[in-house]
């Protein structure tokens, strides 16, 4: 069952990721990115990371992507639909991306044998509590730093979006 779910979600994620990159209409791109993110959330669930599943949906899909869609609507340009969607160095870029992918695949293939991960261990069934404990005890300082980062980003966004500073 879980295997089937994984392949389902993986297929959905990859297919909509490809569609996202190739679509002409930005809002369609955004919709396909949302689909990818939801499929990823499904994979998180399949990996028993319930809390992250919820965070992915609330924050990524319900928050960040709404922001994207909002901005796309604000800058909605029918003109851009008829323009060339890919830039001048697309062939060079494509080759480079292909080379990078190939490198990673090779690294993956070579490292496959040598990587010794040891035995897989069971997950704490109370995922939310475990994440909470870790977040507020072991990772307290990074957590606070992240909150400062968000504050800074917020101020930055407000300043950027303001008409006259």
């Amino acid at each position: 069952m879980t295997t089937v779910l994984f392949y389902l979600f993986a297929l959905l994620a990859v297919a909509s990721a490809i569609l996202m990159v190739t679509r002409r209409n930005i809002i369609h791109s955004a919709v396909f990115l949302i689909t990818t993110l939801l499929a990823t959330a499904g994979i998180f669930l399949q990996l028993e990371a319930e809390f992250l599943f919820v965070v992915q949906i609330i924050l990524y899909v319900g928050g960040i992507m709404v922001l994207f869609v909002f901005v796309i609507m604000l800058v909605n340009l029918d003109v851009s639909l008829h323009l060339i969607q890919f830039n001048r160095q697309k062939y060079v870029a494509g080759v480079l991306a292909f080379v990078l992918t190939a490198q990673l695949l090779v690294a993956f293939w070579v490292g496959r044998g040598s990587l010794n991960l040891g035995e897989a261990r069971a997950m704490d069934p109370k995922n939310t509590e475990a994440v909470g404990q870790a977040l507020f005890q072991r990772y307290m300082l990074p957590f606070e730093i992240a909150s400062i980062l968000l504050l800074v980003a917020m101020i930055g966004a407000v300043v950027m979006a303001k008409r006259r500073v």
Partner: protein
Amino acid sequence: MPGASVLPMPIDNYLLLSLALFSIGVVGVLTRRNVIVMLMSIELILNAVNINLVAFSRYWGSVDGQIFAIFIITDAAAEAAVALGIILAFFRNRETVLADEMDMLKW
């Protein structure tokens, strides 16, 4: 939950999925002209990383990887907010969201 003790499938599958998403994201960033699509491709790359982290976290039976994934999502939120702010400001002045038209160092 049944089967909670072992990883449901070899970790390779997750890594390959992550690799595929990452590559697609890289292609998107490098080839598209529209800045918003480029940003979305970056989100895709971050997402691919998250899959890796969570898969390993599940493998080790520890939540540390998930914590990192949460931090990455936080970071993505901050990045999106600032970047979209910049895009809006730019659009207001130049009325374009195409990367190769953003070639003036001032406006």
